[in-house]
């Protein structure tokens, strides 16, 4: 497995896999019983645990043709529900480095960004075409190119959307937000000194 995202992310390369369905929630991506841990290390094996058990080996994450994939192609409102970062952590530790879909739940999207995993969107028709292309040739190597941004494969190119702020953070390597937040420590102190509820509601 390639190392976890680090620094600037100009593109994500690798084979792709498809998980179809609307409103796939984070309880399905990682069931709550696996949240009983104080580190994320073991989550890769537990991704989609109950869905995989139910499908007895035919879940996309178990299919031989999709093993080693880096780009996950999904449908609408992927990652809804619980805020658990364990969901993108589990996907990342399985090997996923980018997700492409019709839409994403906001907290999931932010959690992916904090890990350096781009979430790119496209129209339902385009996503259906991409999913068809992945399934027709699961060995094909895809490239999510963040400069355009665009999803490229031997089968063709599809324009995708990544919000300008996150796109800039990923391309520049500033997606690990901690250091830039700490850069404004003085301004934070300014708010601590002026917000009414932190200052006994004194008139400013």
């Amino acid at each position, binding site marked *: 497995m390639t190392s976890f995202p680090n620094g600037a992310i100009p593109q994500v390369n690798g084979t792709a896999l498809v998980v179809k*369905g*609307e*409103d796939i*929630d984070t*309880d*399905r991506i990682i*069931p*709550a*019983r696996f949240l*009983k841990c*104080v*580190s994320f290390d073991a989550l890769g094996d537990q991704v989609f645990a*109950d*869905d995989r*058990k*139910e499908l007895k080996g035919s879940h996309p994450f178990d299919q031989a043709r999709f093993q080693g994939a880096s780009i996950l192609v999904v449908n*609408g*409102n992927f990652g*809804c*529900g*619980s*805020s*658990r*970062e*364990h969901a*993108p*952590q589990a996907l990342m530790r399985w090997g996923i480095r980018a997700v492409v879909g019709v*839409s994403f739940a*906001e*907290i999931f999207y*932010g*959690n992916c960004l*904090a*890990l350096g995993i781009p979430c790119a969107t496209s129209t339902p028709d385009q996503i259906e075409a991409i999913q068809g292309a992945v399934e027709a040739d699961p060995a094909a190597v895809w490239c999510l190119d963040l400069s355009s941004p665009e999803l490229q494969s031997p089968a063709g190119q599809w324009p995708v959307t990544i*919000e*300008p*702020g*996150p796109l*800039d*953070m990923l391309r*520049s390597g*500033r997606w690990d*937000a*901690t250091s*830039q*937040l*700490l850069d*404004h420590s003085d*301004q*934070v102190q300014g*708010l*601590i000194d002026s*917000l*009414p*509820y*932190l200052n*006994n*509601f*004194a*008139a400013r």
Partner: protein
Amino acid sequence: MSSGTLYDKVWDLHRVAELPGGSTQLFVGLHLIHEVTSPQAFAALNDKGLTVRCPERTVATVDHIVPTTSQQRPFADPLAEEMLSTLERNCLENGIALNNIGSGRQGIVHVIAPELGLTQPGMTVACGDSHTSTHGAFGAIAFGIGTSQVRDVLASQSLAMNKLKVRRILVNGRLSEAVTAKDLILHVIRTLGVKGGVGHAYEFAGSAIEALSMEERMTLCNMAIEGGARCGYVNPDQVTFDYLEGRPHVPAGDAWKRAVRWWRSLASDADAVVDDEVVFDAAAITPTVTWGITPGQGLGIEESIPGLDALDPGDRPIAEEAYRYMDLQPGTPIAGVPVDVCFIGSCTNGRLSDLRAAAAVARGRQVADGIKAFVVPGSEQVAQAAEAEGLDQVFRTAGFEWREPGCSMCLAMNPDRLEGRQISASSSNRNFKGRQGSASGRTLLMSPAMVAAAAVHGRVTDVRTLPLHPAS
């Protein structure tokens, strides 16, 4: 673009800086932490050699993994014990107040912060838990975050955020007798869909909202996230101030007067501009129950499970999945569906007024044969208040188990869980596949009074058909 709303005002007050690329660095006024989503954040903080910026603005409790039968330490489950021990150590090392078991202040994070007066109008509130939207009931901007963001808030007391659009959910008229805030929010989600609110904050307004108590407003905002809205809020008013006055972290005397003046000024202006508005008629809402595997698959109690032809094409695949998973067929009336387990509790409906409403149904009745029914108060304070007015006895006499506070079977991270294909009537917030601890378990969401009605009949029951027995 919105302007003059509470959301705009609170956003502007907490803006630290504009970040390269267009995100905003937002100051976090209150950071709530618990045992599940914080350990990796503290570990990451240590790895980076950072310290907690504002330990006095960080408040901890333990809720998700606590057993509700015996809370003796060490817990029987070594993983649960390790999670609480880790939280205890992190709080001790970083000078963070922990509302631990037995302190009289422990409970579900979204129950205790309001009852301690920590949550106040005009704050930004963040917590590694999606139901942080609950705190919007006070006119705060409150949102769930992931663990990397918990780390960021610990380190900097701020977050990189993008501003949301504001949608006003205007609810006119009055809710009918026995129709609750839970029914209202299930109705809103059913109407606008589980992704309808993505990219939005929901401002709940209108005469039906103004008439709600604070605990009802918390139920409402709690489930904004189930409609896709990361936060929901109600403008602060006299109901808000009456709830807050006298609570531990709320100012007194002249500071109280100044606080109320400031809080009033934060409410959305009469001429505020919202991005859009959806109007509901409160009187048209009936007790609402989910039948499927998303909180948007709701039905009025008098309705039947919809056929595919009644649904939008986009909603059909998940409806088909729900028919299979729930083993419920189109045309089946939701009233009368048999249940196995009845759960009253959670950050949605585990407060004193919720327990009173359920007790009014349970009083003088018996849980039906073969039904497991249990009540989990949302906090130690709720438990104590309920016991002081004898609600625990009402429930016990009726055949319910009375438990210790915690998240319990809302997400089944403790020993409380469904077994096999069991189906629950649950006052919680999510009916996702496997949510309540069994990979094939099934959940019907409803109000606490409706859960009590289901418990005494062993099947989904319109609570309006049962005469109530409020405390004499």
